[in-house]
């Protein structure tokens, strides 16, 4: 009540006195802030960070694509259109040859062989048009591994041997790149999460022990962290990844790579946790809890944890893009996941030699997905970090 009195006094000095109605509104607004919970304050603060909000939406969209890849992708990622090897992205038109506005459609693509270079050229046949439709029937798939369905988010009504709709072009074997990017999101987006969870567990345990007990244990763990950080991580990761046998099944390789990435990733999180523990150990409320006879475990879990959880979440979010990039880099070099697994790094392997990039620049397009994801996670992490401290001005 004290606060409200004061703010009324301050307002009395202003040039235009508030009407009674406005005054009540104001006080109500203030009260709303005073009684709001920590989570609510964080949420309001987060909403103010527009870029973070947009990024959150992008991240959620990407994960939805990963979950429902079968539905979003128009084709099966392993099926090739033999007649459309390295076909460029299909152009979408809205104006037909008569100059009339239509719903978005594509022309039939014809293959012509250049008599001199023997290369395939793809030209549009303006005679035949295929309108782009939503919820078209396509190849059958299982949704969430349970229900069978044939409906796809978008596509064209055309037999496979006649026409394919390649939003991002087709690869060397005539597979739809967009479909492959959708399926690749599964590995590329989850490997970051899994690796971050593994590094979090290690980081919290070692960082927590280090910061809470201090002394010799702290010293040893700190030296260990410094040591791991002082080795250039890419040569280290490369060597560790090369140690994984090449003929491992995809699932095992996936977890192998995850552990390799987490092996290097935990140090940053351990540092954050330790720093938080160190500063919090001296706080009055921890002292009070100790005097009140709380057990160590209760102090850590009940009193310390909530006040640094948001910071941990922020640094988690900020460390995901690094891991996604490492996976992409490793797979790109041929040390990470390998075909038949589909990840964005594996897709980019096609772009490894200059010849194929010069011939079909669209094989670089999966990189856009990587860049968008990395940027979105960075902004999202920034937003959460700002929101984590809602009392700061």
């Amino acid at each position, binding site marked *: 009540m004290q606060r409200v009195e004061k703010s009324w006094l301050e307002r009395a000095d202003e040039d235009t006195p508030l009407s009674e109605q406005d005054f009540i509104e104001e006080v109500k607004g203030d009260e709303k802030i005073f009684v709001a919970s920590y989570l609510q304050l964080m949420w309001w603060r987060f909403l103010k960070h527009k870029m973070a909000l947009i990024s959150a939406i992008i991240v959620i969209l990407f994960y939805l694509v990963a979950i429902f890849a079968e539905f979003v992708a128009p084709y099966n990622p392993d099926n090739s259109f033999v007649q459309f090897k390295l076909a460029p992205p299909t152009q979408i038109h809205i104006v037909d040859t008569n100059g009339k506005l239509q719903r978005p459609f594509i022309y039939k693509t014809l293959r012509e062989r250049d008599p001199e270079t023997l290369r395939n050229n793809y030209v549009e046949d303006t005679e035949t048009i295929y309108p782009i439709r939503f919820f078209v029937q396509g190849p059958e798939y299982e949704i969430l591994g349970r229900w069978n369905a044939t409906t796809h988010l978008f596509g064209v009504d055309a037999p496979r041997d006649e026409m394919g709709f390649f939003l991002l072009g087709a690869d060397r074997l005539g597979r739809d790149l967009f479909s492959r990017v959708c399926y690749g999101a599964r590995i590329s987006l989850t490997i970051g999460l899994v690796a971050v969870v593994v590094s979090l567990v290690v980081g919290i345990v070692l960082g927590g022990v280090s910061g809470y007990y201090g002394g010799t244990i702290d010293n040893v763990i700190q030296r260990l962290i410094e040591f791991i950080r002082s*080795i*250039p991580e890419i040569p280290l990761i490369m060597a560790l990844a090369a140690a994984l*046998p090449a003929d491992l099944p995809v699932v095992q390789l996936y977890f192998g790579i995850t552990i390799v990435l987490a092996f290097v990733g935990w140090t940053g999180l351990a540092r954050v946790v330790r720093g938080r523990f160190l500063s919090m150990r001296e706080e009055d409320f921890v002292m009070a809890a100790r005097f009140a006879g709380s057990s160590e475990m209760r102090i850590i879990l009940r009193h310390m944890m909530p006040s640094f959880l948001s910071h941990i979440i922020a640094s988690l979010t900020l460390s995901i893009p690094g891991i996604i990039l490492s996976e992409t880099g490793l797979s790109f*070099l041929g040390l990470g996941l390998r075909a038949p697994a589909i990840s964005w790094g594996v897709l980019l392997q096609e772009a490894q030699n200059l010849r194929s990039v010069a011939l079909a620049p669209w094989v*670089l397009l999966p990189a856009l997905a990587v860049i968008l994801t990395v940027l979105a996670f*960075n902004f999202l992490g920034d937003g959460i970090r700002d929101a984590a401290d809602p009392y700061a001005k």
Partner: protein
Amino acid sequence: MLQYIIQRLLLMMITLVAVSLVSFVIIELPPGDYVTAYAATLASSGDSVDQARLDSLRKQFGLDLPIYQRYLKWTWDILHGDFGYSFVWNKPVSELIWERIGLTFAISISALIVTWVLGFLIGVYSAVRQYSFGDYLFTTFSFIGLGIPDFLLALVLLWIGFRYFNTNVGGLFSRDYQTAAWSFAKFVDLLKHLWVPLIVLGVGGTAGLIRIMRANLLDELRKPYVETARAKGVSERRLLLRYPVRIALNPFISTAGWALPGLINGATIISVVLSLPTAGPLLLNALLAQDMYLAASFILILSALTIIGTLISDILLAWLDPRIRYQ
């Protein structure tokens, strides 16, 4: 100061021993050794595999000794300048690596300098002219720069060079100089090719440094002493450079230590893309072929030099900012 240096040197010794151990263990991790890999290639090409010959090969390379003996022998030899033998290249490792490691560090350190100069200048500009057009431009640039993985940037530059300028921007030397001995002309040729890896490596680092410099300087500029100095009539330029920039520079310098491992990282990957004659491609091939002495030597030397580089930057920092010594 002397005590601090001795302390750090001792710590470095321990770290170096640990690095050598880690490099060796990593190389031992894959099942089998070079001889098994060799036998597999022989078998796949249809040649008969003679067990006695394999055993004699093992003996010749010292692969039949127990692991700790091999480690001790390896480190002992390294202390005498012998890094072992590359099975794939049929040459002593020391003949293969030094020039490549030299080039790796030349690229990384030039990139470090470029990053610093650009990051400093743009950072100061962005802070002084906050919310100007230039500030927004550089802020956008730095966010995008942080998001683009360097090997993708290298690929895109490669493609642009090929598509629009019809040249291959990869490599570090023109064809004439590739195998030539070092001379001034070769050095000039190197400079002509160096800018592509420098841009690729520099973008990410510069972007990060711009953010740091801008944030720090903005914090400083809002402090009352700046206002006081301005009220006393100190010129804007002097006012800026005398204190706020100097203070904002501190966290900037301390990033040097961890910038080096990052640059070595970047240099390793982009070298593969741009086919630079540095450590990256050779290390990759050595790892894929289980050429263990070559791979281990690369990891060991890259790590050791990085640790020494970090040590030098730490000592410099302690010399610049005495507070660090007593922490």
